[in-house]
């Protein structure tokens, strides 16, 4: 039987991990991920989860151990955040290049300097090119559900790629909400035990692993990895549908539209700010304004066609970025504009940057974004890239 519990995002991930029955968890604690790894550690300690819990001395070692464990066909989980993610960065393309289905939770947190432990999405944006599936969740329930789904996606034989589940630091990791915990039997049925793959280490068929490939073959290896990550989009969507059939909760695949079909004005969000934006959309809709919301759930592989289909009826589009690509603009804005050009869709797009270093993106700020988009839709000139909830004049 499934049961309801009062959990924060970190704990929800820990329950998702427990239900997925990993063989190995190797992790190093870092705020705001700490509760997740502490909770998993206590599951192992009290015998609720039978797995090898490796206490490592750094994030680099956490990923190196995960790579080792996954190389022999172990279902492997790790978790990190911010500087920890950047510290393990060197290992991330090893995991994806070796096609190891490691699942990692990343608590999105600001990067130094100035030092800051609160949430924004600067950390993961460095690593969009690491060959990992990048998923962003909105609430604790989605965090739990996507942890289970991620193992299924990662271990799919056509995908064989590591998956990173991004949770906004504090807003998701430390905020308690009602979460439904599925039964172990149901999860076992959805996610059978992982038995490895032919490219992993075993005694019967010895192999060279992590070979070198120079200019004669390297590009083909990379293209194969790229092709398979592109095709993972389809599998992410089918796994989500399968999950919905079994558990009654689906997330619409890579993109979820909210009141978007007849909307003239659309805002695109990732992660927890989506929840605030839903409230604003409801309010504006009650005033008769044709506004909508698009929640971008998967950023790698990038859902180009799905985005085009979701936004096709809009006149103007705003993209909320909780990151700055220094010297340019918000990273998602760049990605979304490119996707629209690839789909031959010409729309006016605007970039709203906010929430840096844990600052709230308030309801009022989102109302202002929609108002600015409305002004743009009637031909007024507004800034292409603008910054919200800033304390002082720019």
């Amino acid at each position, binding site marked *: 039987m499934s049961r309801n519990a009062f959990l924060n995002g970190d704990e929800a991930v820990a329950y998702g991990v427990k239900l997925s029955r990993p063989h190995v968890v190797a992790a190093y604690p870092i705020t705001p991920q700490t509760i997740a790894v502490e909770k998993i550690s206590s599951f192992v300690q009290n015998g609720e989860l039978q797995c090898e819990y490796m206490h490592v001395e750094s994030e680099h070692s956490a990923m190196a151990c995960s790579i080792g464990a996954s190389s022999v066909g172990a279902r492997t989980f790790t978790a990190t955040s911010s500087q920890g993610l950047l510290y393990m960065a060197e290992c991330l393309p090893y995991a994806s*290049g*070796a096609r*190891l289905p490691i699942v990692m939770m990343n608590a999105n947190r600001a990067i130094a300097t100035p030092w800051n432990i609160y949430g924004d999405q600067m950390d993961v944006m460095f690593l969009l090119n690491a060959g990992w599936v990048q998923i962003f969740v909105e609430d604790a329930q989605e965090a739990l559900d996507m942890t289970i789904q991620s193992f299924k996606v990662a271990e799919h034989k056509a995908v*064989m790629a590591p998956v990173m589940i991004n949770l906004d630091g504090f807003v998701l990791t430390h905020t308690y909400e009602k979460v439904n915990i599925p039964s172990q039997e149901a999860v076992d049925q959805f996610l059978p035990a992982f038995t490895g793959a032919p*490219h992993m280490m075993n005694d019967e068929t010895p192999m060279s692993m992590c*070979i070198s*490939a120079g200019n004669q073959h390297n590009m083909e290896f990379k293209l194969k990895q790229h092709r398979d990550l592109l095709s993972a989009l389809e599998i992410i969507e089918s796994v989500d549908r399968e999950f919905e059939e079994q558990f009654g909760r689906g997330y619409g695949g890579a993109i979820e539209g909210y009141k978007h079909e007849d909307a003239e004005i659309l805002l695109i969000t990732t992660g927890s700010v989506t929840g605030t934006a839903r409230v604003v959309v409801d309010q504006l809709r009650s005033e008769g304004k044709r506004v909508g919301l698009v929640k971008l759930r998967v950023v790698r592989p990038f859902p180009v066609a799905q985005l085009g289909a979701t936004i096709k009826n809009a006149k103007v589009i705003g993209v909320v970025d909780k990151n700055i690509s220094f010297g340019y603009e918000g990273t998602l804005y760049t990605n979304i504009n490119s996707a629209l050009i690839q789909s031959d869709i010409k729309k006016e797009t605007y970039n709203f940057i906010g929430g840096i270093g844990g600052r709230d993106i308030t309801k009022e700020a989102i109302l202002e974004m929609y108002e600015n988009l409305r002004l743009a839709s009637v031909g007024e000139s507004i800034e292409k890239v603008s910054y919200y909830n800033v304390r002082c004049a720019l």
Partner: protein
Amino acid sequence: MKNFKRVPVPPLNHINDYPMGSSCESFHITDQNSGWRVFMPVINLDKCVSCYRCYLVCPDGAIHQNEDQKFEIDYDYCKGCGICANECKINAINMVKEDK
């Protein structure tokens, strides 16, 4: 000494022929370094006394003894460094300019 036999390289005509990840049977996919050579070592088998010295010093393991006990250079993997010729005590290895 065991003769070193490479597994034949499978044809790589399609991206599906490439292995998943970077794991494959050893020596399936290797990069040859024959293109690095300016001079190639040639063993004068009439002079060679099979002392194994070249075999021991070759940094790429590109010299081996074949089934009829003669020493042989694997020119796919010899990079032309000349260490074997330099170290041969009886000058049985000559460095010959590659004609390209």
